[in-house]
């Protein structure tokens, strides 16, 4: 098992969200038309990121208060910001980004199947 000290949480976020994002980039290089999203979708992704970043603080505050999960202070920055570990904001932003990308790519694909003439 690899250890990265207080950067461990951040490193796992970068590895797993980075892998998911790399997969999207690779797919966009290989199958350009089906994965490239229209500009309006960037707005949807951005707003989803804002909404989840705003609610993650209170959610994690409750989770930590109820001891649903506990962070190891030696593997995280051990800094609480608006009720959550600072890394959690980074976590939710990147997770929302990759889940939103996947959702919109598949949703556009379903739209095209329903209406074959659709340009997006």
């Amino acid at each position, binding site marked *: *098992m*690899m*250890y990265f000290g207080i950067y*461990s*949480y951040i490193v*796992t976020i970068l*590895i*797993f969200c980075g*892998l*998911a994002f790399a997969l999207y980039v690779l797919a966009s290089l290989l199958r350009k038309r089906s994965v490239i999203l*229209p*500009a*309006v*979708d960037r*707005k*949807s*992704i951005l*707003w*989803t990121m804002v*909404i*989840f970043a705003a*609610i993650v603080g209170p*959610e994690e505050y*409750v*989770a*930590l*208060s*109820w*001891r*649903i*999960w*506990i*962070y*190891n*202070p030696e*593997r*995280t920055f051990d800094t609480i910001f608006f009720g959550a570990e600072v890394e959690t904001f980074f976590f939710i932003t990147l*997770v*929302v980004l990759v*889940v*939103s990308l*996947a*959702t*919109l790519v*598949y*949703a556009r*694909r*379903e739209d095209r199947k*329903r209406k074959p003439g659709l340009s997006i």
Partner: protein
Amino acid sequence: MVEGAALEKLYGSKAHRGFESHLFRQKYLINQFMEYIFWLAIFVWLPIIILWAMNWEYLLKYKRTFLYCIIWAFIFSIPWDIWAVRADIWHFPSDTNIGVLIGGLPLEEYFFMAFVTILISTVVLLLKKYFETHTNL
């Protein structure tokens, strides 16, 4: 609060949070081992139910999208979570989940992966619908 302060002195601030959890259980008569389920019900299932109740017809058109996203979420999240628990980045105390462990993770964590993905997908699809009808492209 003397007990809470003593706990904090002995085990640090996280133990104090445990004491708050104990008080919460006493106050609201929550059964032990149910905190994670309650947390999911309040912060994940309830928003999903509300959003789906209001937009089920539109969201149901994208059932395959939800299915694929959940599959991808499991592919990435399960190894991530197992690694994090084994590397002791975070852990799940045994007294706040129902105790069914799969691959070292509580069952509720799998619900978390699936339903948080559904929640994110739901929000982004509703925003897609909103911006499509309110933006002149």
